[in-house]
């Protein structure tokens, strides 16, 4: 092996700079899957309540492996084509614009559903249970009532949810400087909250928690030993607090965790604005974001089982899905249990606020993704040119931002006015996005063969057994996505109860994508412009 060669010698020339720093890119990727939401709503309560015997720890390991493969695949892919616009740009450049549009429609359809859900969840999962929990802990009846009002008040949900969407849209309209500041700040508050919980529980003994719990719950359940009462009540409901390991139940547990853990690569949507997008820095940032996300969840998970007690933690989560759960309106999220352990209203407020911020945090990358997708479509002539215009002052694509708001607010109205009907579609959002991820992975496989010059000039040209690493990672991603797809379809408790409904929706999205593409193409052709060529690479030879 030769000695290390010198790097490049640069001459004096004006420099190219990009706006989003590596740290903000890291936060963007973590914001796309807020750790607090994973811990509260997906990692423990779902597996423990619905998939008894499924190993959360194996689930974490499998989800992590899955996520790392995606980071490697999409990170290397975007380093070869470091443009904003994500899957649309990558798929259309490597295959054909129509496939890029199809891919993007599936992704954006999922994003719009998720945006509405997250905006509603800010009220129904963060604010309402938080107020109820603080009310129960501090004995404030008015807060309990307020929590109930929010949980059932459709207009409250629509109004506050719209506020969250408008707040995030306004942030983006203000440009990256403010967006990254607020995003990094919200993320910092969330992490500080999780850190507080870790430190607090580390110094709280198991017996201390049992005493705190009994003291709190006694007035509600009327039992002096409510702690063991919860375990007994769970057993009466047929919940086994120490179920034997079941691989069959571990798959859906993994899927529940993966649903909020395999998105550490979403900075591909802002690659054109990220510093050091051309080298492997983004792969490292994506992988680090995934590692930190999973590591925090695992460490806190260990602490929860240790301090709350294994059987109790399984029982209380299992019981929460039944009528026998004694704390209506306050699910056994980590926030509730830790606040009980703290025994202080002020402490409870801090924990609940640091959890609630995760929702607006999650809205920021989702709006950004939709905006960047519309922006990229407009640049390629698929939308009117105004959607590619940026503000002279902030460089923000205001028309594209407005379009996202116009699309997501009515969906939020639908979500709040017909939650049950909306949820049928919402659960499909993950699967719709899996379709995009499969297309993106297939495009990654093809990159070295369809665009050899671009691949040769990318961050790594390494091969394993003669196959380029990006193609290998792409192939592996396709297999893993197909497996995840199968798991989602196989376990109705994950939300897909009507498979036919899902495939009908896929057909609708596909037709919408094709109509959009071919109508736009025909309109541009009348103007003397070939849309295929606008989106295609100019032949280099």
């Amino acid at each position, binding site marked *: 092996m030769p000695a*290390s*060669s010198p790097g490049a010698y640069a*001459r004096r020339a004006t420099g190219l700079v990009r706006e989003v720093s590596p740290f903000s890119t890291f936060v963007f990727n973590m914001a796309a899957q807020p750790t607090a939401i994973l811990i509260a709503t997906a990692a423990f309560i779902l597996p423990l309540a619905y998939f008894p015997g499924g190993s959360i720890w194996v689930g974490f390991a499998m989800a992590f492996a899955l996520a790392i493969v995606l980071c490697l695949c999409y990170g290397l892919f975007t380093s070869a084509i470091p443009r904003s616009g994500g899957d649309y740009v990558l798929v259309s450049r490597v295959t054909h614009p129509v496939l890029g549009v199809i891919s993007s429609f599936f992704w954006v359809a999922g994003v719009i559903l998720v945006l509405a859900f997250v905006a509603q969840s800010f009220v129904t999962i963060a604010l309402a249970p938080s107020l109820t929990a603080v009310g129960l802990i501090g004995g404030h009846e008015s807060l309990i009532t307020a929590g109930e009002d929010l949980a059932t008040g459709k207009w409250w949900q629509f109004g506050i949810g719209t506020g969250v969407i408008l707040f995030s849209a306004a942030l983006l309209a203000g440009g990256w400087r403010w967006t990254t500041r607020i995003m990094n700040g919200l993320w910092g508050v969330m992490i500080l909250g999780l850190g507080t919980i870790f430190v607090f529980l580390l110094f709280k003994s198991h017996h201390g928690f049992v005493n705190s719990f009994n003291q709190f719950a006694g007035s509600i359940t009327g039992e002096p030993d409510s702690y063991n009462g919860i375990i007994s009540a769970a057993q009466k409901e047929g919940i086994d607090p120490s179920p034997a390991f079941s691989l069959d139940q571990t798959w859906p547990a993994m899927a529940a965790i993966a649903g909020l853990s395999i998105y550490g690569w979403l900075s591909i949507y802002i690659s054109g604005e990220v510093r050091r997008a051309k080298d492997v820095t983004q792969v490292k940032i994506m992988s680090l974001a995934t590692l930190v996300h999973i590591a925090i969840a695992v460490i806190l998970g260990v602490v929860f089982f240790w301090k709350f007690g294994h059987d109790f933690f399984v029982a209380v989560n299992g019981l929460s899905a039944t009528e026998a759960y004694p704390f209506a309106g306050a699910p056994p999220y980590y926030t509730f249990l830790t606040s009980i352990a703290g025994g202080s209203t002020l402490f409870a407020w801090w924990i609940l606020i640091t959890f609630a911020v995760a929702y607006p945090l999650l809205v920021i990358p989702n709006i950004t993704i939709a905006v960047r997708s519309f922006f990229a479509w407009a640049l390629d002539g698929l939308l009117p040119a105004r959607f590619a215009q940026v503000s002279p002052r902030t460089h923000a694509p205001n028309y594209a931002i407005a379009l996202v708001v116009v699309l997501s607010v009515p969906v939020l109205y639908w979500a709040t006015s017909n939650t049950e009907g909306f949820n049928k579609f919402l659960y499909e959002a993950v699967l719709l996005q899996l379709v995009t991820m499969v297309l993106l992975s297939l495009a990654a496989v093809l990159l070295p063969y369809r665009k050899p*010059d671009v691949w040769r000039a990318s961050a790594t040209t390494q091969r394993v057994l003669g196959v380029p690493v990006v193609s290998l990672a792409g192939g592996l991603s396709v297999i893993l996505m197909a497996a995840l797809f199968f798991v989602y379809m196989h376990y109705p408790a994950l939300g897909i109860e009507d498979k036919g409904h899902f495939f009908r929706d896929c057909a609708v999205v596909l037709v919408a994508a094709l109509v959009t593409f071919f109508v736009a193409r025909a309109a541009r052709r009348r103007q003397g*412009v070939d849309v295929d060529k606008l989106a295609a*690479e*100019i032949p280099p*030879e």
Partner: protein
Amino acid sequence: MFKRRQKQPITRLFYAGDVHGSRVCWKKFVNAAAHYPADALVMGGDLTGKALVPIVREGDGSYAARVIGEQRVARTAEELDEMQRSISTNGMYPLIVDPDEARALAEDSSRREKAFEEALLEELRLWIGFADERLGATDTRAYVIPGNDDPWSIDEVLASGRSVVPCDERVERLGPHELVSFGYSNRTPWATPRELDEEEIYVRLKRLVDQLEAPERAIFNIHVPPYESSLDTAYEVDEELRYVMKGGRPHEIPTGSRAVRQIIEETEPLLSLHGHIHESKGVTKIGRTVAINPGSDYGSGHLDGCLVHLEPDRVVNHYLVSG
């Protein structure tokens, strides 16, 4: 009132700039004429690359180089060719050297500058040859100016092309339009070869626009964007070329030319095309003038450009493309 607009002849123009030594971007620029298609190609300056990458010929017959942070080794002629192509795609000049020469380059800056100059001129000759080969049999011409980063020695090479029209500080006829071209920039912290004070920029541009027969139909091809136009936003750097931080973040400032803005406001041409600030991609209007900076991401091998369809008196449409 409802009279249908009479069909006017359309001039299709493709503009790009700041390819900075990327061979693949230059080839795409030339090929854009047939791809989109376009009647004329306009290159807005900064043709030459910013970095030289030594490829060290090792004792065992292999070649080693560090390419975008990755140590690469070529053991066969094909692999060496691949390595050179990936370096030039990134806008850098590959230079094969022995270990002794590599050491000499590292230690001697004048030797390095000479090697740089030779490499960039040799590369540019290849580019001009490629343009002549592709455009020679067509009516399409590539109107090319140097930018502030380009050394003076490239002018002679540009002038040697048959299909390339070197047009810096000149007015060229382009169908019903006149093309005014200007490659200098205002002062930069990098002290690059072609910089002028604002007053001098204004005087030289004024001299050019005074030659126009129909300023309202003119197209400006001016490397530096107009001041405070949103096409000129960049991070501020200090004398040591470090970012100026304010509030914990790099501080953004307008870096365009006040003289260019003044001349656009006074002349009100149909279209004004700019480059120079790669990250300030966009389209804006200054008075009636449509001003465009398509940006540059030459290092990715993608050519950022702009396809503009013009009637004699209006811009019909424009598309920022990344081909």
